[in-house]
């Protein structure tokens, strides 16, 4: 079930009505939230429910065992292995078998490895990471163990954020589920504002950019360097609007239900260095990797090259989390490399004195370079795109001027938003006018087919 469909509108209307009726009856409210979440998730494929129920039950049990028994480490290990196995089986089995097959071919080993073709349950990477963080936090006593099964299951499966985040932490959500939600007038208006803008980001901008990006990236050999450059810019904005649009809708829906989800995007294309970018982009995942991978690896402690190694390794793993393909690993590696190479540069007087806009442009272009690997269908396509961009041959560039001008205007809006002139955007007239224009565009563009969110594939 996608947020921008009629199905969801009906689903949410019913869910919300009953949720409000049961607001003061915590157990019934949680049960209803869980049922609604399972309906939402099972809409894709009811078989996925078996997986999530199994995973939830095991983690719930493990949480209790870690808190109450001496076998803390054993249960933590069981749980982490189970999560890793689930991800490995559903998400990476195809990748591993395919690469093993290639390796055997190269080494002339006469072994025919069948390539695993397993249906990837939607959102598995998200809810697995969410439950992993809970178990680790219980182990390190950063969060109180949850003894109420329905509450824990609601936390794992909560429909606004379960399939594509934000990857929430138990310490943020579980306390919110313990009491009757406080739904103020402001929460509803904020929720609606967030949802509407998310809708516009997805339907108007992301899906529009997708048409151009898909056209160029599906046949990169047909296009010249200018077109490929602009298609890469377009993808940078497509993925931002797609994912942040989803997050806005998720946060909007949750907020209207009196649940506060964490911020997941904070104007990432206004970042002034690569570290800053990762503090603004997919914040819930970046902080997850920081807390559960980077810090346990040693974090900022130790000698310089060890820190560099920690950064690089964390980013490579983050790339691999996104998808089972070499392109994602390289994407993660490039981001890590970029971060490592600029850690010291960022501290120099030269960089500190460089105008902010120059730094923002540099970071944006570096990120765009890495997006080539993220979006390309395979490694050879990515290399072809890079090669063609570097050749600077411009035969007949195809740049949808109107579309990219609109994106340009949004960038200017973002730059103003993050500058001292933000007040210009904060009067009622601009807000209402902006929302009206955005909604008119939504109404115009909503007649097309509903496209899936990019991050659902992860």
């Amino acid at each position, binding site marked *: 079930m996608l947020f921008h469909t009629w199905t969801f509108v009906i689903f949410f209307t019913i869910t919300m009505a009953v949720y409000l009726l049961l607001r003061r009856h915590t157990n019934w409210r949680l049960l209803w939230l869980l049922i609604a979440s399972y309906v939402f998730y099972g809409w894709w494929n009811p078989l996925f429910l078996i997986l999530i129920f199994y995973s939830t039950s095991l983690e719930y049990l493990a949480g209790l065992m870690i808190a109450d028994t001496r076998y803390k480490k054993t249960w933590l290990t069981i749980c982490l292995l189970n999560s890793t196995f689930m991800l490995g089986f559903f998400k990476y089995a195809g990748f591993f078998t395919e690469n093993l097959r290639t390796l055997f071919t190269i080494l002339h080993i006469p072994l025919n490895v069948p390539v695993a073709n397993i249906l990837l349950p939607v959102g598995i990477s998200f809810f697995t990471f969410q439950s992993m963080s809970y178990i680790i936090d219980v182990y390190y006593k950063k969060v109180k163990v949850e003894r109420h099964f329905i509450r824990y299951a609601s936390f794992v499966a909560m429909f606004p954020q379960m399939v594509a985040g934000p990857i929430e932490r138990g310490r943020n959500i579980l306390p919110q589920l313990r009491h009757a939600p406080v739904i103020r007038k402001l929460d509803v208006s904020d929720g609606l504002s967030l949802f509407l803008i998310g809708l516009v980001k997805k339907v108007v901008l992301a899906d529009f950019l997708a048409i151009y990006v898909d056209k160029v990236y599906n046949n990169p050999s047909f296009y010249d360097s200018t077109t490929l450059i602009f298609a890469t810019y377009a993808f940078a904005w497509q993925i931002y609007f797609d994912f942040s649009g989803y997050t806005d809708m998720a946060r909007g829906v949750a907020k209207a239900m009196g649940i506060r989800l964490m911020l997941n995007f904070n104007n990432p294309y206004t970042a002034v260095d690569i570290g800053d970018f990762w503090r603004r982009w997919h914040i819930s995942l970046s902080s997850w990797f920081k807390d559960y991978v980077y810090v346990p690896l040693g974090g900022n402690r130790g000698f310089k090259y060890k820190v560099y190694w920690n950064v690089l390794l964390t980013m490579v793993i983050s790339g691999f989390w996104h998808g089972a393909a070499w392109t994602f690993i390289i994407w993660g590696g490039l981001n890590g490399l970029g971060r490592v190479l600029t850690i010291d540069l960022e501290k120099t007087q030269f960089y500190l004195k460089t105008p902010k806009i120059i730094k923002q442009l540099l970071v944006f272009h570096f990120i765009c370079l890495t997006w080539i690997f993220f979006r390309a269908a395979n490694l050879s396509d990515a290399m072809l795109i890079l090669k063609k961009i570097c050749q600077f041959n411009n035969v007949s560039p195809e740049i949808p001027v109107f579309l990219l001008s609109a994106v340009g205007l949004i960038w200017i809006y973002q730059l103003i938003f993050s500058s001292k002139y933000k007040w210009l955007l904060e009067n009622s007239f601009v807000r209402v006018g902006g*929302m009206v224009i955005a909604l008119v565009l939504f109404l115009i563009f909503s007649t097309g087919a509903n496209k899936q969110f990019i991050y659902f594939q992860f």
Partner: protein
Amino acid sequence: MRKKRIFSSNTFRLNFKELAITGVIIIIGVLFLLPFIWGKIENIRTGSEFRIGYDSRDDYWVYEKWAEKAAEKYPVIFIGDSVVWGMYVDSSSTLPAKINRRLNSQVVANLAIDGMHSVALEGLLKYYGGAIKNKTVILHYNPLWMNSRKYDLSDDEEMQVHHPRLIPQFSSKYKCYTESFSGRLNICRERTVPFFCLLNHIRLAFFNNEDLNQWMVDNPYKTPFSQISMTVDPSEKEKKNSSENWKQKGIAAQEWEWVPLDKSYQWQAFTNVVKLLKERDNHICVMVGPLNPYMLTPASLVKFRKIQQGICNWLKNQNIEYVLVPDLPSEMYADASHPLDKGYDLIADTLLQSPIFVPYTKQGASLCSVKK
């Protein structure tokens, strides 16, 4: 100092009052007022013997506007599918045009659309044909739509339905129609909110039936505004007369199963259309056929005659005037139901000579001369 909590990534944060103002502007201004003003300003060209062009057959906005104009200018409205619309003839040789020529006056308006089977016609008149209430209507019924369960829409197998946006969206009857739930709701939205009907019109009239975003990608250096004009010509532009009959085309005799009247969805829909027109105080005359009997095997012809008789009996029982189009000479059929130019001449003559039909045309002619 406490750090200010970030609301979201560059989002407009509106309070209740602002959201309400936005809602009012969108609902009243955009969804209803804008299409109303557009409709008043836009000039849809409808010359003499106008019919809605093949490319505009899905543009129900144009149909609605043409129905409004026709109801104002013409005393008789002719409704039907491609037989009345004039599949193999140009706009000056269609059945309504031939009747007008014989009467030497613009009496009959061609409000037929290609592919308009009865199930779709019910939707067309219900949602876009309100303007023709109280008018004299010649309603064509083409039994060809009942020749198989597939075209009758009573089959369970999925198929491409003509005019899917006009058929009932939430009826469990039409199992062959498999639009998604969201798609069906979007269609209902188009029928009830004029803005979406206008959007579809703009897409069809100015953007080659492409979604706006797809068009902008396909035409990277054009602005969409330059495409839109306030004068639209939805008439048929390239239709040529064809003289090739069904035998010359090499069409073999057909063994059609025919769906009995009591089981036919198309027939049920047709009776609903009649009921709707009666409720709207329309003066109705039904034209049954034509249908090429030479293309049917003897067994299939027997079944067809039985159905034809059933249709006439029902119309008689309902006290509805009707004309049963007689069998034309074989060479005057272009296919199973479409006549060629000479076939239309014969039908027009028959209609005008028919005692049932004469009062309409006379009334039409007299009304027209009064108006002049």
